[in-house]
């Protein structure tokens, strides 16, 4: 693939970071295949894709953690290959794993990192207090890290990445492993940080909702390629059809797919499981009415029906031909399908 299917225009602000034809090779395997994008100052930019798509490899190249095989990455005006130290001084990085020291207290972890970033002695206390307040951990500053919950530890990681007041913030799957409540708390916190600190953020995620809620622009990455780039709205609008209808019939029949495709406004029909279909349409209300009428005329029962706007899931399916969560849920679905199911619907 030579370039993304759509390439949403970058905001007018100056460029905070850019990658040009960047490639990462491990022997014969190419993890990142000539990706290009730019991120404007103050923007939250998301790299969206399944596990193994190349998101973390991209972020690791941009944060100097692994060498670039070919191409160029410019972060905060510096080439990551030529001047990695200058890049490191201006970025904050939250790795995917929780890497704060569990034996040290919250404050000690931040103090060590403030020293590693050469924050002046007089400034350290102030910075630590500020970031602890920003992540709502002020009253836990003396607690040993190993006593914190997963969500609190993630917030500590974020505070650690901010202790030297960086211009650019990289977050590699910042909410992976968190419960829904903690996840929403992290989203709110990142939005606040963006507003109060004018940070440029680049985050990777495989959560559609996270990318949709947080990011100003999203790049969809699959198999090392950047397949689409734009704002969430642009990406959704780029998919033919404005609504998605999910319908489940009581009885599975071979002709359902063909019949659904003939309904007004329908642009695609995707079978999800036995009797369950995902229908993309340009007119949700009209298609729904025709669908119900068709089922009534045929004497078929509909066990469930929902109409919703196009989601990033649909965008991902459109550009990659598969579900984003396929790789995560396939094994679970397979075992679930093997189980006997009770109930009539």
């Amino acid at each position, binding site marked *: 693939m030579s370039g993304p299917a759509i390439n949403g225009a970058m905001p007018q602000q100056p460029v905070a970071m850019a990658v040009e034809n960047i490639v990462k090779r491990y022997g014969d395997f190419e993890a990142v295949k000539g990706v290009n994008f730019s991120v404007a100052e103050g923007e939250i930019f998301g790299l969206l894709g399944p596990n193994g798509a190349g998101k973390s490899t991209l972020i690791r190249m941009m944060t*100097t*953690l692994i060498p670039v095989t070919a191409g160029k990455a410019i972060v905060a005006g510096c080439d990551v290959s030529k001047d990695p130290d200058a890049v490191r001084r201006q970025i904050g*990085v939250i790795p995917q794993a929780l890497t704060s*020291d569990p034996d040290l207290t919250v404050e000690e972890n931040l103090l060590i*990192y403030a*020293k*590693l970033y*050469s924050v002046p002695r007089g400034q350290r206390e102030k910075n630590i207090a500020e970031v602890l307040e920003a992540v709502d951990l002020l009253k836990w500053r003396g607690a040993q890290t190993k006593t914190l919950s997963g969500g609190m530890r993630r917030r500590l990681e974020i505070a*650690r990445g901010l202790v030297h007041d960086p211009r650019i913030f990289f977050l590699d799957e910042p909410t992976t492993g968190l419960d829904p409540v903690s996840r929403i708390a992290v989203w709110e916190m990142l939005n606040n940080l963006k507003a109060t600190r004018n940070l440029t953020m680049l985050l990777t995620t495989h959560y559609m909702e996270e990318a949709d809620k947080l990011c100003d622009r999203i790049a969809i990455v699959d198999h090392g390629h950047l397949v689409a780039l734009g704002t969430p709205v642009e990406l959704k609008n780029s998919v033919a059809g404005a609504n998605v209808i999910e319908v489940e019939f009581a009885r599975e029949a071979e002709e359902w797919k063909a019949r659904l495709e003939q309904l007004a406004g329908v642009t695609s029909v995707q079978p999800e499981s036995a009797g369950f279909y995902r229908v993309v349409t340009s007119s949700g209300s009209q298609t729904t009415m025709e669908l119900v009428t068709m089922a009534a005329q045929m004497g078929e029962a509909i066990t469930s029906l929902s109409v919703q706007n196009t989601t990033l899931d649909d965008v991902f399916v459109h550009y990659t031909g598969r579900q984003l969560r396929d790789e995560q849920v396939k094994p679970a679905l397979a075992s679930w399908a093997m189980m006997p199911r009770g109930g009539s619907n």
Partner: protein
Amino acid sequence: MNRMLAIVEREMRKFFRSPVLMIMSMMLPLVQLVVLGNAFGGKIKNARVGVVDYDHGPQAVKVLEDIDAVEANERTFTAIPYLNERAARKAVQSGKLDAAIIIPASYSQRVLSQDDPQLGLVVDNSDQFMSSAIESTMQSVVAALNAPVLPPRISNSIALEVVELYPYIAYMKFLLAGSVALAMYVSVMIGGGMLYIDDKARGVHEGYLVTPITGLELVMGMNIAGAIKAVLAGISLTVIGSLLAGLGVIFHPILDLELLCILVATSIAFNGMMFLMMVRVEDPLVPRAMFGVLNTLLFFPSGAIYPIAAFPKWLRAIAIVDPFTYAIRSLKEVLLKSGGFGAIYRDLLFLAAFGVGTLLLATPLFKRTL
């Protein structure tokens, strides 16, 4: 510099927060010191020795009296009368006896007629320590029997006069130097090698690598922290071990200074060696698997337990490049002989050069990226 000190600070905060490392690094050497020091240091006592007397003459009585004297004074063995040599041999073979003394028939007559008299000693030489101890005691008994009743006023036999430079050194004291070095090695292995690989596996290093810290600062920070931990382990074991073994050197400031120099040089050498071995290791199981092998390969050829002079050539070659050898030799000089800097400076130089050399080799191998 500040970034390097931040790494040291992090390590030391962890170290003092969790004293497990200190306790674990001293546990093995202390147990070894107490158990081996007491087990190997003592003399053989109360071995069971059968006595078969076929003679019953006056000279045989003299032998029995000397055996009784051993039993009452040195207590190397206890004499148990046996009726015949066959039964006594069988008892030695079956382990009921540790040895058997045979006084042959006509022994007294042969002594008096100076006709090559002989006493028999049956030993179980599968146990070298026991058989050597009984043989040595019986040699003394025989020497006493051979001595003239009235010694000549002018002796014409050659005597060896042994001058012992130092007071009697119990085995526990001899072992202390090795135990101190071993405690430092365990500290470096756990607090340096294992923690370093564990930190890598947990992603802690990934956190460091995105900061502006240089590779050299990171290497030096980790090694300085490792060296401080090893010195603390060495000091602790020197103090506890000296008190256990009854050595008073820790109360002499000059000797304390010499000991501190040895401990610092040893910790630099051990840390450099460990860092060189672990710098490219990723799997946390590797240092755990290497622990026992390295311990055997480095500790035992060093002269900590047995003299190097008794080793075959290949084992002596290991001893020559083994930093344990120089650490233990210099520690013995100070702990047992109060040798002074003149006696230890060569060992200090070797240890320092070894440490710096291994660090110089390891630093370029350290990867600043993942």
